[in-house]
């Protein structure tokens, strides 16, 4: 996780003073962030669980039998040494399917988070910068936010057809407005700062100001919000697949495994419990990580004294040099809204 927020730089990097210490300081700053991350118990726990689930997703399918192997003789076996999570009604190994499902769920979640972040960032930045664009874009996102997320996603899936790529499209449409909102409110504050005025006076183009000078200042709330979108899209994808409107079978996803499990809940509890536990721990981990990142990245969430000290140190450093990728305590707005989705 890079901690790359940029100080408004209206001046060129001061090469003589800066280049000597730059690499060294960037590295120490990164390790400082990692240290703070490791010290933040909840964020660290969340991150660790997420790493484990990711490892299961990457290596699990290599170590388990194929999740598609149908074996009539092995139908509905309870958990055993051979099949630690049991087998389903086609005799397929549930552990293998959970691991393969982790791939699907994490892929859909991560891809949606990235798409949403990029799109939401663009919409939010332009909305913050231009009044007319603001009116139009924000009314559209108000309208989209009037639909409950899951319902809009179902409706879009019904129209587009059941396909994994369509799940990502549907979720991106559903969650972009929430990201755009956060980016916009952060960017509005940045826009009012003196350095933007200075850039305008110097004749910097709009694109330059928006993408090179404002965008880096909204990265922290964007990362935090993208983390929550990641969690929400995993939940929504699972719900969609559970309702039969998401990832189409036979590809396993945690959601459609639960649907199979529900139909056999009397005979095969393992078909419900294992995918369920994986969804639960993944979402919990991402939420913990998101809360933690917010604490760590958002200066308004930190304790007062350390913030002041940091600011003082920052000021001293900034006076000495200016680099393209460094830290700013420029007043960034809170991202409490992030909880809303």
């Amino acid at each position: 996780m890079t901690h790359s927020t940029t100080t408004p730089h209206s001046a060129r990097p001061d090469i003589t003073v800066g280049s000597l210490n730059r690499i060294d300081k960037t590295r120490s700053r990164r390790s400082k962030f990692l240290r703070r991350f490791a010290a933040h118990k909840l964020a660290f726990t969340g991150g660790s669980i997420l790493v484990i689930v990711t490892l299961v997703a990457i290596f699990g399918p290599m170590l388990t039998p194929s999740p598609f192997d149908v074996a009539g003789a092995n139908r509905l076996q309870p958990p055993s040494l051979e099949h630690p999570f049991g087998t389903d009604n086609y005799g397929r190994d549930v552990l293998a399917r959970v691991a393969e499902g982790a791939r699907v769920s994490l892929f859909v979640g991560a891809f949606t988070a990235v798409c949403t972040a990029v799109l939401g960032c663009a919409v939010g930045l332009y909305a913050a910068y231009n009044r007319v664009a603001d009116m139009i874009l924000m009314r559209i996102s108000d309208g989209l936010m009037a639909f409950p997320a899951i319902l809009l996603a179902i409706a879009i899936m019904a129209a587009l057809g059941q396909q994994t790529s369509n799940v990502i499209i549907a979720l991106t449409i559903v969650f972009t407005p929430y990201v755009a909102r956060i980016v916009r409110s952060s960017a509005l504050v940045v826009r009012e700062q003196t350095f933007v005025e200075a850039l305008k006076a110097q004749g910097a183009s709009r694109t330059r100001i928006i993408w090179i000078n404002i965008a880096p200042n909204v990265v922290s709330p964007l990362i935090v919000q993208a983390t929550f979108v990641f969690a929400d899209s995993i939940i929504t994808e699972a719900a969609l697949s559970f309702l039969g409107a998401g990832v189409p079978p036979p590809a396993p996803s945690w959601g459609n495994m639960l649907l199979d499990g529900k139909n056999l809940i009397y005979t095969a509890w393992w078909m419900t419990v294992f995918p369920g536990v994986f969804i639960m721990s993944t979402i919990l981990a991402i939420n913990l990580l998101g809360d933690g990142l917010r604490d760590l990245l958002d200066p308004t969430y930190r304790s007062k004294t350390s913030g002041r000290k940091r600011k003082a140190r920052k000021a001293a450093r900034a006076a000495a040099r200016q680099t393209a990728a460094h830290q700013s305590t420029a007043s960034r707005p809170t991202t409490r809204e992030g909880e809303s989705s």
Partner: protein
Amino acid sequence: MAGYLMRRVLALVPVLCVVAVVTFGLMHMMPGDAAAVMLGPDASEEQVEALRESLGLNEPLIVQFFSWVGSALTGDLGTSFFIGLPVTEVLFAALGPTINLALLAQVLAILIGVPAGILAAKRQGTGADQAVMAGALMGISVPSFLLGLFLMLIFGVWLGWLPVAGYVPPEDGLADALRYLALPAVALGSMQAALIARMTRTAMLDTFSKNYMKTAKAKGVRARVSLYKHALRNAALPIITTIGQTLGTLIAGAAVVETVFNIPGIGQLVVNSVERRDLVVIQGVVLLIAVAYVLINFFVDILYSVLDPRVRFAGGDS
């Protein structure tokens, strides 16, 4: 007040327009010919043409849009091709169980969330606080349909205390209806309770730092009285907003939980319609719930301004 009301009503217009355009657009998001897709590959040329005609797909887009909005305003959401009944009729038949479930879940969530939030705020930093906050995090992290499945497995299948699935309308015996609705309502209400508990805690902690709380303490008001009369009343506004804002989500959530417990409500209707690609019904459900959501938020805003006159004068630009 009249001016404020006027502003809020005007602010509804663009939102409802977007809602209408998106809902209408669903039919045109279908890849290829909507009528052919809905009928499936076996349909004959004439059948497709007839459905195109009845859906009005041969008209120019803009004409289609306005005639659709026009009939939606008069309560006509079209006729489901598969069920052969007007969508409005189908919708209202399915609405009862969904609303019962959503209301029961909401009541449960308030009964659990508010006291838990007050407790956490009163004992800030102690074990009780941490327990409530951990519970709230769990509530937010477990999707309602998953919690529903787990509850079903534990209380329905393993312990056998409650029926696994099904629905009894309250008219046929309240006790039975509650037995069937208990698990779904808990599953649906848990996230709501978590959100309410978090909000209550934050709002209460906010009021604790206010000067009037100090005054109350200084003049010797009993702790219990100051907690409920001074703190809770002032913290009530954000709590009410949270409850109102999440009501729409709750109805949509009810649709998902219903499918878990085979309750014949909006959710079943949507799932069946997705299977049949019966977009007319889906459009109807989406429109109804989105409009309900917008109106609920509108009334919460109005209620807010009635409860707290400051809102009206602040020139609500939200």
